[in-house]
């Protein structure tokens, strides 16, 4: 059986000061997991090595660790794949050790065991993680739309392993951020029709400066999650519900930023950055509403940056200097964009691939398998379903007239 080297970040508070690295070599079937490797170390080499583990099947959530820098479950990481990952690092390309560390953003108790209580669980408890129905329950079951139960099953799938918390880049910079696990849990209730405190929950999280608008939108939690919960997606849904469905203004200017961005594209087609900056803090300040003191502070805080930009020549044109003086799209393009807006605002459909899965194109007998394009791909967590009726061919529609796609003459690379 092949040999693998595990480079483990250890911490033995009773026998040694501070953390240190230790390498272990294990003989392991390549199909087994990194956790199996760690257990082999524990069973045959060093029983002082500790790692939380139980089911070994990615369902109990005990073995959250960082493997080659990636937060994940140790039981779910195949050792041969972990070795491939290790070999991709610059360095000894032949046989880099597999790096195993405890989860991040949490205090370390010993070796790979972290203190989840003070970070993960405290944040989860902060979102009032139990159902708050209205009044007395019915005699039988609550009647709810079947899709709603499937929808919240995505958050319900969370096994509280902490990998998302470990990977969260916002939390790295701001330890008070409520975090992906807690917010995904919050969605589980906000999305449940039986809960009667939807608005209150959203309001609470929007009024918390470390709440739903503190997420830096980096997808690290989506990558880390072993169960397809996609915490960041849940956070975005919370934002959408708070901002659109319940008209809740948050303390982070998040809603204003969102609305400003959206409106600017409707009117101009591309981004007017200075207008966005201004509108994010104080909507319609040119003329209408009085900005909050926080907004004024934010605006004034951005002045030094703006001044530097003017000085070096980044913002030299009128369109950049003065908010609002930004050209629309050429020709009738802007009109078409506006039409897109009215069509989309009417329906506001939310397609969730976790629920619907992805269609699989059934290829014609002599056709190559469906090339889904190299821009979209990757190991999907969703399943294919056979399309009803005929196959969707990558067929030819009538050649659409090539609209004015002439490159604009470049002036200093700007407009």
């Amino acid at each position, binding site marked *: 059986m092949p040999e693998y080297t595990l480079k483990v970040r250890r911490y033995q508070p009773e026998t040694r000061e501070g953390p240190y690295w230790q390498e272990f070599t294990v003989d392991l079937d390549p199909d087994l997991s990194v956790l199996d490797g760690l257990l082999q170390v524990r069973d045959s080499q060093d029983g002082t090595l500790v790692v939380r583990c139980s089911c070994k099947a990615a369902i109990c959530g005990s073995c959250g660790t960082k493997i080659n820098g990636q937060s994940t479950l140790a039981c779910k990481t195949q050792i041969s794949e972990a070795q491939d990952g290790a070999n991709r690092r610059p360095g000894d390309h032949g046989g880099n050790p597999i790096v195993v560390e405890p989860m991040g953003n949490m205090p370390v108790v010993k070796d790979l065991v972290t203190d989840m209580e003070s970070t993960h669980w405290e944040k989860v408890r902060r979102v009032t993680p139990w159902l708050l129905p209205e009044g007395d329950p019915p005699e039988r079951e609550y009647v709810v739309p079947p899709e709603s139960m499937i929808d919240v099953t995505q958050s319900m799938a969370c096994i509280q392993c902490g990998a998302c918390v470990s990977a969260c880049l916002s939390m790295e*910079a701001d330890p008070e951020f409520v975090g992906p696990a807690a917010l995904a849990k919050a969605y589980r209730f906000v999305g449940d029709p039986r809960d009667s405190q939807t608005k209150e929950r959203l309001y609470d999280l929007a009024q918390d400066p470390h709440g739903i608008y503190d997420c830096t939108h980096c997808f690290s939690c*989506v990558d880390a999650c072993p169960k397809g919960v996609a915490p960041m997606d849940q956070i975005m849904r919370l934002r959408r519900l708070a901002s659109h469905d319940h008209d809740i203004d948050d303390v982070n200017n998040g809603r204003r930023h969102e609305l400003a961005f959206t409106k600017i594209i409707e009117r101009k087609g591309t981004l007017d950055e200075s207008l966005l900056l201004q509108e994010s803090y104080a909507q319609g300040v040119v003329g209408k509403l009085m900005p909050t003191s926080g907004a004024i502070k934010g605006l004034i805080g951005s002045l030094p940056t703006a001044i530097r930009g003017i000085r070096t020549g980044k913002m030299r044109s009128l369109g950049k200097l003065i908010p609002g003086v930004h050209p629309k799209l050429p020709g009738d393009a802007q009109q078409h964009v506006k039409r897109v807006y009215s069509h989309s*605002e009417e329906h506001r459909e939310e*397609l969730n691939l976790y629920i619907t899965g992805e269609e699989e194109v059934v290829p014609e007998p002599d056709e190559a398998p469906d090339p889904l394009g*190299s821009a979209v791909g990757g190991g999907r967590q969703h399943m294919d379903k056979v399309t009803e009726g005929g196959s969707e061919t*990558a067929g030819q529609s009538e050649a*659409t007239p090539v609209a004015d796609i002439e490159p604009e003459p470049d002036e200093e690379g700007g407009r």
Partner: protein
Amino acid sequence: MSDLKLAYWPGCVSRGFTPELHGSMALVADRLGIELLELDRANCCGAGVIAEHNQELADTLNARTFALAQSTGLAMMNICSTCQGAQSECQQRLDADSAYRAHINDALADEGLEYTKAKDGWTNKNLLWVLVEDYGLDRLKEKVTRPLTELRVGPFYGCYVIRPKHRIGYEEHPDRDLYLESVIETLGGQPVEYDGARKCCGFPVITMNRDTSLRQAGTHIADALDAGADCLVTPCPLCHLNLDMQQPEAAKVTGRDLGLAVLHLPQLVALALGFEPKELGMGKHIASTEWVESRLAGGVPA
């Protein structure tokens, strides 16, 4: 004579607050023989922000851009990690469900546009991917007239061009999260390994939680400095804004002197192709690029 011809979406910020990006791209494309057909009727990708507000709207806006590109018969290129990420997410939904796609195409019908899934193997790729996968590093190397020897470059990818794993095409292209290093090496430079290379610059929360935002930017810049980088390179103008334009503010928040040049990917390539910093608008940067220039001139050693 060019054999690589692409529909080109420059994004908003490259024509806005980072005009030096747009300019350098044009110079690089010309020198490399890549013909770019700029989609100037196309609209903003939404940067993930519009999707937050109304998912269908973001999908439709990007479907429009895709359709405009498809009607040129060419594959599409973007020069912004954020565009890549926002667009890939929308494209995944559009491709996943034919009924949804038909519904979205309804909104485009007036303009005579239609997004067709996988039309002739149509793709939308960031410049970084185009250079490695379509142009080829060998070919790029041949064009290098000024190898960036002695230049230690820290790669900064930008979240949306490397995450989430299941959407960024790793199945077919498993090394997409190492491309910057390969490009740096091809150009003769030395890639620098540091903690923040694949982390978040903080741009998405700059107006929402300034401290969180700038702390991220500042920490990653500091890590790169500690690892000995002469500059950073990034394929995302939004990252550039937070790392370069906000660098003095980031320094204040982290309480650390910074002063690390941040280059756009086309600028780095252009330097290796022989262009001068002034032609590339490097004077417009907030964080001075003088150090880089002197390293290239064979000046001050490490």
